[in-house]
């Protein structure tokens, strides 16, 4: 029996041995190549990405406005920022293994020491940054919220929750250290293994306040950015959670060009290089803006506005009338891009001046009288009036109703005045409402809106800025969408640029450039070889001469609406042709009172600075997330201007002046065969009369233009950057507007 059992036991052992040997043969003989490949793979180093830089932004003359500059950031591991218990456990284990706190200390000792060091690190960081502990906590919160959102989003995309790349990275809690600061930071933070002082770049904005809106800014990447990333499929160009992306202005609209491509290095431990791709910096973007002109205009505008009683804000847009390249785009007031982050709350709550608003493209106003040349042109083209048709201005359209449909000449003044019988060009010069009411009525609202459309009202002007709004062209479909009927009265209102119709300052400048050249084009803000389409506007040259003569008269005839203010000396060789405009404006809300009840049942009234009710509710909920309130109880607390009427008893109005420069002879007569070079628009919010206020400013604008641009003003000499025009014999696809 013993023998037998030993044999059985031996057989069992032999069986086990046979299995092992078969397995070994399978691994080492049959499938050896598979494992050899695995062994080779083990030698691969983790691919390293090499950081890239974002493209620069230059002005028209090649002056550097924005660039990435080297700096240092203090980065803290995400596990410490988020207080992830798994990270803490792993870190404690690692610290224990390293023997940092003595080899024999227990896990509990190490965890107490670790927690203490993390606390100490926050104090050190707060001291180093002198921003205080609260500020540091806010930064950490915002980083964690952002990464958490990205994580949720990735999980949604993948279908399961898994750790993401960003969680294994350090995140910058203190940025933009100088060389000296980084040396100091390294000496302070080297004792914390989870804190690193890393090379980084900061975006430096050199344009000052005047360019802040145009250039925009970069912001940390969020989940939404990653979802809508144009380069999502490009491994080396797609966004990561530690990147920054354009959040406003040119930084946003030119993101695709500006963003660089990361490099990549992939090698083995034996020193073999498998792939090595150098990082490619993002492309530079050259603006059409002349930064010297922009700065001068901004300063001049600020000085002028300071003298006005109600106005705190406005905009100037200067276009090359031929190419429609934007030479200057002033939005006043503005902010300092370098301190934007720190001052954000102050800027946001300054609801009177609204320094954050990009007025040149993001605000639209009733265009008022600046559409009058357009209305005349439409009337002439459609045959409703002729160059010699007259309408008799008696101060009001209907003698029986002297208080309605009045001409501006009759308004507000104790002495009743009138323009009498006027022809088209005179009507423009005098800005006669009666002529326009009549012409508009003859054309009808629908016809008028087709002409508005030809001149670009109601559609984005083409700058590509995300801030840009399209203004309003009250087409039948638009009127239907807001449920307003179109009446004969509508046509009369539209003809003087009131009621629903609205235009942005950049649209107004483009409108003037179209008056000057007889063509419609898109406005461009970035130099490119593509000139874009051109629409030849209809109309007999005679008709165009009528409206240009009218606009010449506005500034240069003694009875023009802006003669005293806007006329420039003939010695300059240029005359200004322009049109005034005043758009009625109600004082805008600047703060709201929100009666609320908090979770403890306590009631109170909170004053919130905001320009609209929905903004007010948004800001309120941000500060009081748990409070309840009834939106119907919210009331406007203050408005600007504070009084409903101006000193002279008239209603408040925004002041427009749109103009272009035309070469003239010694006698001050325009040389009509010369191509006009520069068109511009001036908008002064709550400025009052277009002629008196904006006209004065327009004259200063012309002054600055002549001073700064000088010989560049001659369109044959070309103000455009020649290097973008070289070789490309532009065959523009000229189209005739429908």
């Amino acid at each position, binding site marked *: 029996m*013993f023998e037998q059992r030993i044999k059985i036991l031996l057989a069992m052992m032999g069986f086990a041995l046979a299995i092992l040997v078969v397995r070994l043969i399978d691994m080492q003989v049959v499938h050896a190549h598979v494992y050899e490949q695995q062994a080779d793979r083990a030698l691969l180093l983790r691919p390293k990405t090499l950081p890239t830089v974002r493209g620069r932004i230059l002005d028209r003359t090649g002056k550097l406005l924005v660039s990435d500059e080297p700096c240092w950031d203090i980065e803290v591991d995400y596990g410490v920022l988020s207080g992830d218990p798994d990270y803490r456990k792993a870190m404690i284990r690692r610290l224990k293994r390293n023997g940092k706190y003595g080899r024999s200390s227990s896990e509990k000792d190490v965890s107490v020491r670790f927690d203490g060091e993390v606390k100490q690190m926050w104090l050190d960081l707060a001291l180093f940054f002198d921003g205080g502990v609260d500020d540091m906590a806010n930064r950490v919160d915002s980083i964690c919220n952002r990464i958490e959102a990205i994580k949720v989003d990735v999980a949604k995309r993948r279908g399961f929750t898994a750790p993401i790349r960003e969680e294994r990275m350090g995140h910058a809690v203190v940025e933009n250290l100088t060389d000296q600061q980084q040396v100091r930071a390294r000496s302070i933070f080297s004792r914390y293994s989870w804190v690193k002082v890393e090379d980084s770049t900061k975006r430096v904005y050199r344009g000052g306040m005047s360019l802040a809106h145009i250039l925009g800014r970069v912001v940390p990447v969020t989940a939404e950015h990653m979802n809508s990333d144009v380069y999502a499929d490009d491994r080396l160009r797609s966004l990561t959670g530690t990147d920054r992306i354009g959040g406003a202005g040119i930084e946003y609209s030119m993101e695709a060009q500006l963003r660089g491509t990361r490099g990549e290095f992939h090698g083995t431990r034996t020193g073999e290089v498998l792939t090595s791709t150098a990082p490619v910096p993002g492309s530079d973007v050259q603006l059409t803006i002349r930064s010297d002109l922009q700065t001068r205009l901004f300063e001049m505008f600020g000085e002028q506005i300071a003298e006005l009683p109600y106005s705190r804000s406005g905009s100037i847009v200067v276009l090359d009338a031929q190419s429609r390249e934007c030479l200057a785009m002033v939005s006043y007031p503005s902010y300092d891009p370098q301190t934007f982050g720190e001052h954000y709350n102050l800027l946001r709550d300054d609801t009177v001046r609204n320094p954050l608003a990009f007025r040149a493209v993001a605000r639209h106003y009733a265009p008022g009288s600046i559409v009058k040349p357009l209305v005349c042109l439409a009337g002439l083209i459609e045959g409703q009036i002729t160059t010699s048709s007259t309408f008799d201005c008696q101060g009001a359209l209907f003698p029986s109703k002297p208080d309605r449909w009045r001409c501006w000449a009759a308004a507000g003044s104790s002495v009743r005045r009138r323009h009498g019988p006027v022809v088209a060009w005179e009507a423009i010069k005098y800005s006669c409402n009666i002529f326009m009411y009549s012409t508009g009525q003859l054309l009808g609202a629908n016809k008028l809106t087709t002409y508005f459309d030809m001149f670009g009202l109601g559609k984005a002007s083409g700058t590509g800025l995300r801030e840009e709004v399209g203004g309003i062209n009250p087409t039948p479909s638009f009127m239907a969408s807001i449920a307003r009927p179109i009446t004969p009265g509508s046509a009369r209102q539209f003809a003087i640029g009131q009621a629903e119709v609205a235009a942005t300052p950049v649209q107004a400048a483009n409108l003037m450039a179209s008056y000057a050249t007889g063509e419609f084009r898109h406005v461009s803000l970035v130099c490119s070889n593509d000139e874009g389409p051109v629409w030849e506007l209809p109309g007999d040259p005679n008709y165009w001469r009528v409206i240009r003569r009218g606009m010449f008269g506005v500034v240069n005839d003694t009875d023009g609406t802006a003669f005293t203010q806007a006329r420039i000396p003939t010695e300059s060789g240029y005359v200004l042709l322009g049109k005034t405009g005043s758009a009625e404006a109600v004082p805008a809300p600047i703060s709201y009172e929100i009666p609320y009840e908090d979770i403890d049942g306590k009631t109170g009234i909170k004053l919130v600075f905001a320009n609209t009710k929905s903004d007010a509710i948004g800001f309120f909920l941000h500060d009081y997330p748990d409070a309840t309130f009834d939106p119907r109880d919210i009331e406007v607390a203050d408005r600007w201007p504070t009084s409903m009427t101006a000193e002279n008893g008239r209603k408040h109005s925004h002041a427009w002046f749109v103009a272009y420069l035309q070469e003239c002879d010694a006698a001050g007569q325009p040389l009509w065969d010369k191509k006009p070079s520069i068109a511009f628009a001036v908008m002064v919010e709550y400025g009052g009369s277009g002629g008196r206020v904006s006209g004065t400013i327009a004259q200063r604008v012309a002054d600055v233009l002549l001073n700064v641009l000088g010989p560049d003003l001659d369109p044959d000499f070309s103000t455009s950057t020649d290097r973008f025009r070289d070789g490309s014999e532009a065959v523009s696809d000229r189209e005739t507007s429908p």
Partner: protein
Amino acid sequence: MRRPVYDLTQPGWVIAVAVAILVAMGLAAICASNTVPVGGRNVSSAVMAGKQAGVAVACLALSILILRIGYMQLARMSYPIFFICLILLLPMIVSKYFGFTFGGLVPESRGAFRSIRLPGFSLQPSEFMKVSYILAMAWYLRFRKNYRTIDGLMLPILFSIIPMVLILFEPDLGTVLLFIPVLFGMLFVAGARIKHLGAIILLGMVVAPFTFMKLHSYQKSRIMAVALQSKTFRAKIEADPEKYAFTGVNKREAQEWEVSSGMQLVRSKAALGSGGVFGQGWGKGTYVEYNFLPDRHNDFVFAIVGHQWGHLGCLLVLGCYVAIVIAGVEIASVTPEPCGRLLAMGVVCLISAQTVINVGMTVGLMPITGMTLPFVSYGGSSLMTNFVATALLISVSQNRPFSLARKPFEWGDRGHSIQS
């Protein structure tokens, strides 16, 4: 009657030569690289090999001493020895559950308390437990009534359960699992009734799932490693983690298996497989030159053997064990004395079970349990245990049966040849 110490008998020499080859291969595996990673530090391989060689010399001396004393003398003292070994296990349990480390005498390693640190070296009492267990079992089972009746079987089961439970609490699952084949093998060879053995196996099969449930998740995932190697199995867990919750492996672990808990196994297989037939050569190859394979000089030394010396090297190592086993069986079958015979079979079972489990885990057929490869793996206590065990084995072969020995315990009528 006893042979002189230097006369090892024929099977004795076979065993001695096989052991010498295995120890030499172990030393060569340590010396393959300049440094050896130990607990996060790199230690010069010369120091490590020197230490191991020193232990081997000490073990040799110990073996000679055992041959001099003779297994029978030791077997007579087997109960006190067993009891002392049990006492030695207690400090580990005290450290683990009462946090008292005896002044750093019982250090923690990866969450387990397995050794007593003395100046210059450390001891693993569980290793000594193995030999004293075999000795005590052999001593007890030499009487027929002790294994033919269920009452008699109670004591060996108790003998096994007490050290097993103590070692399980350290915890050292690998050593615990080693007791089972040894117990089974000794009972089986001694001639225990098949129905008793069957009952024990049945009981084990019932208890095993409950024990599994009670394990730490890292222990579970180590045991599940055999199944987790399969991509399809991991995909199944990822697809329906609820259904596979019993495995103790969650979705994330299944996803990251290859780079986290399965990393060691994946690399061990890659090291072994990439050795091919002839191997990368001594001191060459990815897994020797770079520190990719944790525990490469102890638990996973077989992978390094296969990596450097290929399939032929593996066969040489396995061949040595086969030689030891066959020589051991030969010794057992010619020894009429029941205690020596059982002792020989116990040692054979111990060495073969360790080998099968260690090689099995290296090639991915067995759970990763922290088992050393006898004579090859680095580690003084393990080396000493195996030396003592083989010394006992040789000692059995050297000792003629006592003339006054009881009748051989078979009660069948099969004769047996007695070789003098």
